[in-house]
């Protein structure tokens, strides 16, 4: 993979993703420009899971789009493996709350989409997709169309598609928000397992504080607009960090959740 080559060239201490003084102002030429992201800096280390939580409408999704190169920053830079980003990075996996599965493709063909675009041979990409679908508990559903799958299964297919081209960094924007609680815990655990075992780095944007605490090594709390990093929590929990139920048994879990909740300054609407 080109990303691992990059990683080796850059040395292991270079973070896969680093944002430096990132700012985004919408409608700069207008009378009332809106500053959404105001001066954000952070780094994502190799094999690290970092969550970003913040009050509703604080610009989390804008931040993600800046990191992916989908929209240009007003100022500041995004570095991938120490290199300033130009356009959409190659080794990134991107996943949203909407599964965005293509309805005319079967589960398998949805998973292989990215590999197809990269020109990976048919046999190789089918095999890769089968392995991922099996790992995510979708054995036997490869030939199903999305319309015939449940919400949880569809999101698993989306996760498989995100992982198919072996990205070193995952950027996830509330990917589990639309799922019921049980399904959510299971998919969170599967995601943590697949990410931690392969030493991928993951940035998770969420409004679910429990999800952030149970999944992450670090939680960044953002302020209201123009959003900035307000506080950073390093999460230390006992036991298997790939089991979201186990994480909730640690007594410190509740403390982290309460502290972050206090930081968010959720005001009654």
């Amino acid at each position, binding site marked *: 993979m080109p990303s691992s080559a990059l990683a080796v060239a850059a040395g292991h201490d270079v973070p896969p993703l680093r944002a430096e003084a990132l700012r985004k102002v919408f409608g700069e030429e207008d009378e009332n420009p809106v500053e959404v992201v105001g001066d954000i800096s952070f780094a994502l280390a190799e094999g690290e899971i970092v969550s970003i939580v913040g009050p509703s409408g604080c610009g989390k999704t804008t931040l993600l*789009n800046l990191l*992916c190169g*989908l929209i240009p920053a007003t100022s500041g830079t995004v570095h991938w493996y120490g290199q300033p980003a130009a356009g*959409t990075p*190659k080794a*990134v*996996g*991107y996943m*949203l709350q*909407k599964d*965005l599965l*293509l*309805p*005319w*493709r079967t589960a398998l063909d949805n998973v292989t*989409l*990215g590999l*197809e*675009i*990269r020109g990976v041979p048919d046999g190789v990409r089918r095999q890769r997709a089968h392995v991922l679908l099996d790992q995510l508990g979708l054995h036997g559903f490869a030939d199903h*169309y*999305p*319309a*015939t799958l449940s919400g949880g299964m569809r999101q698993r297919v989306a996760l498989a598609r995100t992982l198919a*081209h072996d990205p070193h960094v995952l950027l996830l924007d509330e990917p589990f928000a639309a799922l019921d609680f049980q399904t959510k815990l299971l998919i969170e655990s599967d995601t943590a397992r697949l990410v931690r075992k392969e030493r991928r780095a993951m940035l998770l944007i969420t409004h679910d504080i429990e999800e952030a605490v149970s999944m992450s090594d670090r939680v960044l709390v953002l302020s209201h607009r123009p959003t900035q990093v307000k506080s950073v929590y390093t999460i230390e929990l006992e036991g298997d960090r790939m089991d979201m139920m186990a994480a909730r048994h640690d007594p410190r879990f509740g403390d982290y959740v309460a502290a972050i909740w206090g930081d968010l300054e959720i005001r009654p609407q």
Partner: protein
Amino acid sequence: MRRYRLRETALILVCQIGLLAGLLAAWEYATSSSKLSAFLFGSPSAIFGFLVQMWNDGSLIHDTYVTGLETVLGFLLGNVIGTVLGLSLWYSRFLARVMQPFIIALGSIPIIALAPIMIIWFGTDLASKVAMATLSVVVVALVTSYKGAMNVDQDQINLMRTLGAAKRHIFTKLVVPSSLGDIFAGFKLTVGFALIGAIIGEFMSSKEGLGHAIFKAGSLYVIPKVFAALVATIALALVLSFIVGRIERLLTPWRQVP
């Protein structure tokens, strides 16, 4: 639940047949008892008689075939040209904006106003009727396919970009297939428009076809024969839209959720 729905479908069918039969019976009664002029309004039995006569002399099949051929050719040509243009406008926002007033202008022309020119350019045979059918279809096909292409979810496009897709990948793997729904919806509409275009062409100048039969019988005041040709036209329209529906189902298997 399923049985209940089946019973409802059966009831609807019975009501439809009953309504048609009642209408025909009232029409027949009114004209045979001279409450309505049979000369001006025809009668179901006379229409049936003409249908049998046209079947026997072969003109029913021949005229339906001619009009059907014109319609199908115009439908295909108009949809291919319209869809290709409509989808390719997605590729260039600039070109789309340049073309917009021309498309609106072309779309606002009543097709019938073009018939004399089409006859002059393409003669009185098949080609002019196909041209009329094509013109009736092409702008609708263009607008529906362009709309379909522009309605593609921006998040979906972003996802494709993060997967490394170039514009041509986004076009072939996302825009074209996701526009199919709108394009097929357009097919159902344009098959009727193509038939109208073909019939208008035949009205202007022709030697054969259902439009020719209607026009000729009308000029001679043979009202039941006008209705007989009209029945054949309706049958043709129903058969063509049925076929389009079938093709749509065949080409979009993911839409049939078991």
